[in-house]
């Protein structure tokens, strides 16, 4: 080995590559040519071929199936744990300020108004235990695009799979589920939701639950107002946001910032009745009845979509509201 010719030294790496099946055809030909004339290198070549045979045996040696299975089992359990904790999120600009959208394996778990803030530290995601937040892109980008379409009024539904694990209790979850069922352009009250979930006395608890709605806009708590028509609260005290979201759906509000209420005279009314009839706000005393039992509707199309028919007395079909 130590008395090798220069040509032998130069070709050594190629010789090893060729002998171990790791060389291009051109290199193989060059090596072949060399070892035809050089006996020591021919011996080296043969030796590396033999070594390659032993390496091949190593490659074919199976790992103990038991230890592979044990490692796999451990992996499945650690993966399940990670999946249950992992939440990917991103913060986006929007006409309503910065919005954080987060989703887990199960679905969208958080939509949060961050106002001027853009960092995770401002989000409740950073304070929830048992959650592993991770900034992520593509998937959430698609949700964001849909949200912008919604806010522009170009989309009336956000058909996202939801993960309600950030809800604080079963009661909280049932409030969110009932709220999610209120259609685009319809308005009901906290008392209405309380009745809907079979707890008619729990109006205040419903309002409190919606104050902590982890999925505003998607679970449309902006469609839930006071029985009198007052907008009451939204995402803390951001009534302005509620007003804007309702306006997108064709539900107008009037009044001052501290005392704004939906303009009932611009909305169709549906008070539960056997005929499933909806009315003009001028039909009898319907505009004075509490919201909750009465549902407000932004359009006749919505009433139709809900399977309602025009009232035979006030005939909203003949006298549509002009706003």
């Amino acid at each position: 080995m130590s008395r090798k010719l220069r040509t032998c030294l130069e070709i050594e790496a190629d010789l090893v590559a060729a002998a171990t099946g790791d060389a291009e055809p051109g290199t193989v030909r060059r090596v072949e040519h060399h070892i035809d004339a050089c006996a020591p290198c021919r011996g080296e070549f043969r030796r590396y071929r033999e070594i390659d045979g032993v390496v091949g045996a190593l490659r074919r040696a199976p790992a103990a199936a038991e230890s592979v299975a044990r490692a796999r089992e451990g992996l499945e359990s650690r993966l399940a744990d990670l999946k249950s904790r992992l939440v990917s999120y991103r913060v986006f600009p929007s006409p309503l300020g910065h919005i954080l959208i987060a989703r887990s394996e199960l679905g969208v778990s958080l939509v949060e108004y961050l106002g001027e803030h853009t960092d995770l530290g401002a989000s409740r995601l950073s304070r929830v235990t048992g959650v592993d937040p991770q900034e992520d892109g593509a998937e959430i980008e698609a949700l964001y695009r849909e949200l912008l379409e919604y806010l522009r009024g170009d989309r009336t539904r956000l058909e996202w799979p939801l993960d309600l694990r950030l809800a604080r209790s079963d009661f909280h979850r049932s409030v969110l589920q009932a709220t999610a069922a209120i259609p685009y352009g319809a308005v009901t009250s906290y008392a209405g939701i309380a009745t809907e979930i079979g707890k008619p006395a729990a109006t205040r608890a419903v309002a409190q639950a919606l104050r902590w709605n982890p999925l505003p806009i998607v679970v449309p708590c902006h469609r839930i107002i006071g029985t009198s028509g007052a907008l009451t609260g939204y995402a803390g005290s951001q009534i302005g946001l509620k007003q804007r979201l309702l306006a997108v759906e064709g539900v107008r509000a009037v009044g001052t910032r501290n005392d704004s209420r939906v303009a009932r005279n611009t909305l169709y009314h549906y008070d539960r009745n056997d005929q499933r009839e909806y009315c003009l706000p001028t039909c009898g005393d319907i505009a004075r009845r509490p919201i909750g039992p009465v549902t407000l509707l932004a359009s006749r199309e919505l009433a139709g979509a809900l399977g309602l028919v025009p009232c035979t007395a006030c005939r909203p079909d003949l006298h549509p509201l002009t706003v």
Partner: protein
Amino acid sequence: MGVQPFETIVGAHHAEIYRYIRRVTSRATEAEDLSQETFLRAYRAYRTLGPEANVRAWLFAIATNLTRNHFRSEKRRRTAHLAASVEGRETDPEGPEDEARFREAKALLESTVRGLPLKQRLAFILRKIHDLDYEAIGRSLDCSAESARAHVFQALRKVRLSLNGHALPPETSPTNMEQPR
């Protein structure tokens, strides 16, 4: 997203990644932990993978990276070198004499590989055992494909030296230059 479900990725590659790390670390518990960690990291990032990505090479890169970090501790490196478990006792060649010689050579090869500097060891195992191309090995080891090739060459030279004087069963005739895979 455009990538296959993660469960499919686990099913297709877990055993091989485990074997890879097991061979590099020589310890079942470390291999278990590091292979699991590889897939947990992969799970966090796999949504960002393009549909054209080479998932296998990507997993090897994560595994290699984790393994290298693991070995950064000098103490661990020493214990890994000391751990000399010889696994796999299946028979390859035909005759009983060949068999014994082969087993011996294989054990010697394994211990030589375990004693290689980490980069050479990783490059050798990635190329010779798992058949990764040099581009992928380079990406795993943060070096060029050429450097990766050089690592494998150096590893083979050391293996050749360590097997000096050991009779090995002839693999194929020296004029047969076809790739032995």
